[in-house]
């Protein structure tokens, strides 16, 4: 199940009921933060969380997000290298006069 969306906590609105104001692309909604509070509720301001049906259910781990994107970037580069290698290979086999991409040993 789904439709959770990343939102940023911008203010605490009710300490007793553990409620905070979340912002999603300029749309604001009061959400319950019981699931993500660790100690001081005010420390949540500025944090990003996954918001679902009015509850902040999990903090978004900035480091993990960066790591995922990094892995995707590496994959992109690896694919480019592979592609270049493949093109180099084809050029060799077809005996064309196009210069072979050097370096990685096609």
């Amino acid at each position, binding site marked *: *199940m*789904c*439709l959770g*969306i990343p939102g940023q906590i911008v203010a605490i609105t009710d300490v007793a009921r553990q409620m905070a104001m979340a912002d*999603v*692309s*300029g*749309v*604001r*909604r*009061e959400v319950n933060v019981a699931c993500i509070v660790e100690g001081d509720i005010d420390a949540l301001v500025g944090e990003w969380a996954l*918001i*679902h*049906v*009015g509850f902040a259910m999990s903090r978004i781990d900035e480091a993990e997000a960066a790591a995922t994107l990094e892995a995707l970037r590496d994959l992109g580069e690896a694919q480019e290298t592979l592609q270049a290698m493949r093109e180099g290979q084809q050029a060799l086999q077809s005996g064309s006069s196009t210069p072979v991409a050097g370096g990685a040993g096609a």
Partner: protein
Amino acid sequence: MSLRSDRVTMAHGGGGKAMQDLIQEIFTSVFAPPGMEDQARLFDVALLEPGARLAFTTDSFVVTPMEFPGGDIGKIAVCGTVNDLAVGGARPLWLSAAFIIEEGTEFALLRRIVASMAREAEAAGVRIVTGDTKVVERGAADGVFVTTSGIGVIPPGREMAAHQLQVGDLLLVNGALGDHGATILAARGDMALSTALQSDCQSLGHLMAAVLNAAPATRAARDATRGGVASVLNEMAQAAKVGIVIDETALPLRSEVKGMCEILGLDPLYLANEGTLVLGVPADQAEAALAAMRSRPEGLAAVRIGRVVGEHPGQVRMTTLFGGSRIVDMLVGEQLPRIC
């Protein structure tokens, strides 16, 4: 001031003095129609031109809440009818305005609605020349219902119609999509979402005139209201029996509208608009049409969103972010927010 209460009562609908006071104080003193007979008697010299035609349209307006950021029911009642005339290539001239008012409605609200209509009519260059008022019992109407009919004149030789779309034509819009629908959703309050969004409610008569001046071969124009841009595109594709392909990356959307759609699981293509035009223009006139729109406040963000193709006649498709393709179907029922 002869109105004694601060709310409308059944007496104000009775046809007697109370009703006359209501009409005079609230409506005619503001709209100042020419003459006060049962009908307006009108003339415009443009009607005399051989080949000129009358354009005539009507629309009813029901919206909750009646007042929202960017407008109110009065403003959309004027804009909606002016726009329906303008998209047919007509110069809008005269409007009628009929009100069904629920018992208990505050006069202050009525005054604001009427003031809004007067302001908008002036901006659009039209006159409100006749109207009607009825009062119904509490519960029989949701506040105020407004019906406006409009008359305009189409110059000789102008024949705009959706069925004229041809393969190769381009589809343009004048600005961000879905602002009205998203604003109303937030304004209703049941989802407890707040934004700085405003309705895109505006009259498009001047914009259309500018477009038609710069791009006289414009095939068709439509006012995208309920059902969103997707519904209008489907209507156009079906009328002309052509295919339409739009580009997801070209759709102009404010980030708050995107945010609302993500939170509620809605598709912005189906959100209502009240000041958004969809134009079908021959490719060689598209740049001129865009330039004309961008030179006016109602069209600053005008862009091209798609083109007419020979494939899949009657069907609208969208090229997605990823270069994939999906069908953009007619809306079925009402778009409901979802959690899944």
